[in-house]
């Protein structure tokens, strides 16, 4: 937003019409379309941005952080909380790049840890409690938790602490090493690419 636009600060309340919804104006976050008009659904400041394709994006920002819920196909950041031979329980902390106000429960089953040699996966050699993992939401699962998957090269453990308590460095896709004690521990390591966890190869849901 340029300074000029921020000067004329327009406040709107839920249900207030902002403008006609047509090819030129599109509604973004904090808005919805009703009877052909872009309508605000939050109380906040209207933000107007022109996009590359000459269209104008209308958004409403409220002071409070908007909360999201994970949906199928999203990449989430989670902390492993509990492990047994069949699955690992996780607390979902972030959805894409949005930090959640409260964690959601997730479950990572043994079959979904990696894409190949699924039957030879041993959970204890892939994760430990307190590891931070990147995972993709497969489905909403049963009523209790979201079903997660790390069956992609870019998904898996990103932050893990050794038994001694220092953050470990990945060495290969199945091992991480403690920089102090040089002890190697087994993990399903994520190949972290800078800023590119593509949504193209989203797993079929």
């Amino acid at each position, binding site marked *: 937003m340029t300074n000029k636009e921020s000067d004329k*600060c327009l*406040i709107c*309340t*839920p*249900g*207030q*019409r902002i403008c006609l919804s047509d090819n030129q104006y599109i509604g973004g976050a*904090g808005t*919805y379309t*009703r009877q052909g008009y872009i*309508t605000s*659904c*939050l*109380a*906040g*400041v209207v933000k107007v941005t022109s996009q590359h394709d000459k269209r104008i994006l209308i958004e409403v920002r*409220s*002071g*409070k*952080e*908007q*909360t999201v*819920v994970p*949906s199928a196909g999203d990449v989430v950041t989670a902390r492993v909380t509990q492990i047994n031979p069949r699955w690992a329980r996780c607390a979902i902390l972030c959805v894409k790049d949005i930090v959640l*106000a*409260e964690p*959601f*429960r997730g479950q990572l089953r043994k079959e979904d840890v990696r894409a190949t040699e699924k039957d030879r996966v041993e959970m204890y050699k892939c994760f430990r409690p307190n590891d931070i993992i990147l995972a993709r939401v497969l489905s*909403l699962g049963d*009523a*209790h938790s979201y079903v997660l998957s790390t069956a992609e090269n870019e998904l898996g453990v990103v932050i893990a602490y050794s038994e001694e308590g220092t953050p470990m460095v990945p060495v290969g896709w199945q091992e991480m090493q403690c920089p102090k004690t040089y002890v190697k521990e087994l993990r399903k390591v994520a190949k972290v690419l800078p800023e590119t966890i593509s949504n193209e190869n989203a797993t079929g849901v």
Partner: protein
Amino acid sequence: MSGNELLSDQGLRIDGRKPNELRRIRCSLGIFSQADGSAYLEQGNTKVLAAVYGPHEIRGSKSKALHDKAFVNCQYSTATFSMGERKRRPRGDRKSTEMSTHLEETFAAAIRTELYPRSQIDIFVEVLQADGGNYTACVNAAMMALVDAGVPLKDTVVSCTASLVKDVPLVDVNHVERSGGSPELVVSILPHSGEIVYMSLTQRFHIDHLSKVLDTAIKGCKDIGAILNEIMKGHLTKLDTSLQAS
């Protein structure tokens, strides 16, 4: 008949208001730090606190989870000291449970619940002082708390009551007028679209009167909506300036 005292010969009501005059509304937002959103609202002597938590994961019994939208949970309670006679149970009695259900239905119609599947939004309202129009004050307070929490709403919901004394419709009925034996029509609307989301009538009257009483209530809703909109905007500008100052 008691109706005679409710509206004087000069056309004034028992508390000195004109038939189409609302009680004074005062409201402040963001009064609790722990809740995601909160509001305190006074409509005359009716005083209500509202707090909103969520959307968060379903708590309690998992069977309440809806796979395509959020579950709205309301709890209505009245403080033991809120009425002339001291109340034994602040919540959980039949009347409070019914009121909670009405509030849930009202807000399920106004919140964009489809944005948050399998999650829950909690709304807690507490009546501190009851002087008629408890449901109305609760809806208005909870709506302000939802706005404070940043929960996406299709529209603001506002509620108002109306009554009929000597064939004259009265707006925003207080406790004396309500217990004086006149009918009470409670209406909640979405003011921008004009949809009625809740309507109830305590007594019977002739259907010919309904349209004018309903019009009075809807007019009251729209007036309250305008007042609350101003309060919302005032709160936002205050937030905005304090953010820029810091």
